[in-house]
């Protein structure tokens, strides 16, 4: 058993995210925590996990200490099973070969919509963010796991701009818009694990991390989030998980 002083909140995030993945799945992973988490579970409990990068890489081997800085550079291709064109790797999502899309988020709302494009009025942006990249396509076409810091300014009632669709306005609105598959599956933060109500598609807390209270989650969420009374509590990161994680990212580029 470990306790909270044994790991950073980014390490907690990585471990909790890793545990959401299931052996045998094909996972479209972004760089940073998602890639780290996917690699962690590949080394520990899911050797049959296949990682895809949007730069055009299928089944790479991530070298400890050489985590690629983007998904579009040659480091991503090391000992990969296949390199393919960007459009073709994204089309694997559309064809249905991918189980999970796994990425970080900057701003999310009640229905799991993500914004990475524009803060403020879209017609007259306060801050122009880098944009969607593959995020829109990934979240349009497959089950999503999003990992991010749990802060009030990041968990908002309604995002200024829907870059990556969650459940849009909730209910059947996602399906009605033409997105008949996929959707938000889990949101993993340093405080808790969230899912979505089957009917309303509103975000709800499914489990709290060790030592975290429901009130803490509420205080750090910018909308009224449903929290069950009989909440699960996640198991704290194991020594083994932390060891492997630190082996993968020895300079703590993503886990400081």
């Amino acid at each position, binding site marked *: 058993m470990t306790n909270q002083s044994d790991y950073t909140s980014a390490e907690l995030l990585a471990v909790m995210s890793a545990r959401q993945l299931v052996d045998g799945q094909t996972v479209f992973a972004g760089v940073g925590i998602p890639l780290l988490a996917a690699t962690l579970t590949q080394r520990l409990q899911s050797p049959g996990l296949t990682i895809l990068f949007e730069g055009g890489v299928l089944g790479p081997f991530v070298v400890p200490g050489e985590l690629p800085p*983007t998904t579009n550079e040659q480091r991503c291709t090391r000992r990969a099973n296949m390199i393919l064109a960007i459009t073709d790797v994204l089309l694997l999502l559309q064809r249905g070969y991918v189980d999970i899309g796994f990425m970080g988020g900057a701003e999310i709302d009640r229905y799991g919509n993500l914004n990475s494009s524009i803060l403020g009025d879209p017609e007259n942006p306060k801050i122009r963010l880098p944009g*969607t990249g593959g995020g829109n396509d990934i979240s349009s076409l497959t089950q999503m796991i999003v990992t991010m810091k749990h802060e009030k300014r990041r968990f908002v009632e309604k995002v200024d701009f829907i*870059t990556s669709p969650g459940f849009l306005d909730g209910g059947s609105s996602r399906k009605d818009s033409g*997105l008949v598959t996929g959707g938000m599956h889990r949101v993993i933060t340093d405080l808790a694990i969230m899912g979505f109500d089957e009917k309303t598609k509103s975000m709800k807390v499914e489990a709290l991390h060790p030592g975290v209270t429901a009130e803490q989650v509420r205080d750090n969420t910018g909308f009224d989030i449903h929290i069950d009374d009989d909440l699960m509590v996640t198991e704290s990161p194991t020594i083994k998980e932390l060891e492997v994680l630190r082996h993968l990212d020895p300079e703590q580029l993503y886990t400081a």
Partner: protein
Amino acid sequence: MAQSYLDLRAATSARDRSLREKVMSIEEATSLVNNGDSVAIGGCTASRTPFAMIWALIRAAKSDLKISRSITSTEGDLMFASGISNHILTSWFSQGIVWGISKVMRAYTESNRARFEEWSHMSIGLRYRAGAMGVPFMPMRSMMGSDVAGQLDNLKEMDCPFTGEKMLLVPALNPDVALIHVQRCDAYGNAQIDGLQFMDIDMAMAANRVILTTERIVSNDQIRRSPDQTRIPFIAVEAVVEVPFGSAPHECYGMYEPFFSHMDDYASLTKTNPEQGVAEYLEKYYYGPKDWTEYLELLGLGEMLDATYRGRSIQND
């Protein structure tokens, strides 16, 4: 909007597509890009960016270029700041995740002096693909419902006549010019691309003319010994320019990785006062050097060797 088919055919038909030598200097190649052209840029983020050609276009003071690229890195900052373009169509625009949001992009777009037209990554790929296939649109299943689609005015929805499913149609993109950097090609423009291809092949086939820069020109004989390795055929190519380290300070697969300290320096330089920083950078690296070799000297031999060492190691195991 998609180009009319008859116009597209006429433009292609007018080109001399025969097996002929096309080797020229980078300065000569700039004359194939007209002010106002739509210009597609190969590579992605910090990989196989045709930097030498962009460098030459900035020095040639082109204007009103309408740029498209899968993902845009520093070259976008430099095109905005130099004034050769105020309109970039791309899916993601910043130096790279580790360097955070581009301050230069923010300065130009938030003040409405330039436009970052955002499309999803796949939709850009499918627009080039439609262009390469000679059809006016491609159907797809993402982007619907999002504000990425909401803010664009050239998308259409349709109900599939076979299945009744709702589909999004994106218009073909047939750029006037595509700039593509490759590891090797022959003097006619038959190009081989190792490793990551990005959207380069569709882009080349969609474009009305292709300017290839290449690390090395090889013989046509060498190409003909492994024709299944040719990725872009000579019939699509208008110019071949040999430029060693033509993607520096970005990477070229199997040859060199990004020049990371140079990129760190750029990020620092543009952090506090982005416009002044990028102006200084342009002055020093773009307008200052008398030629590409002098530019490389400014990047520094040490960085070049280090980037090469890292770049070649991909094939070590």
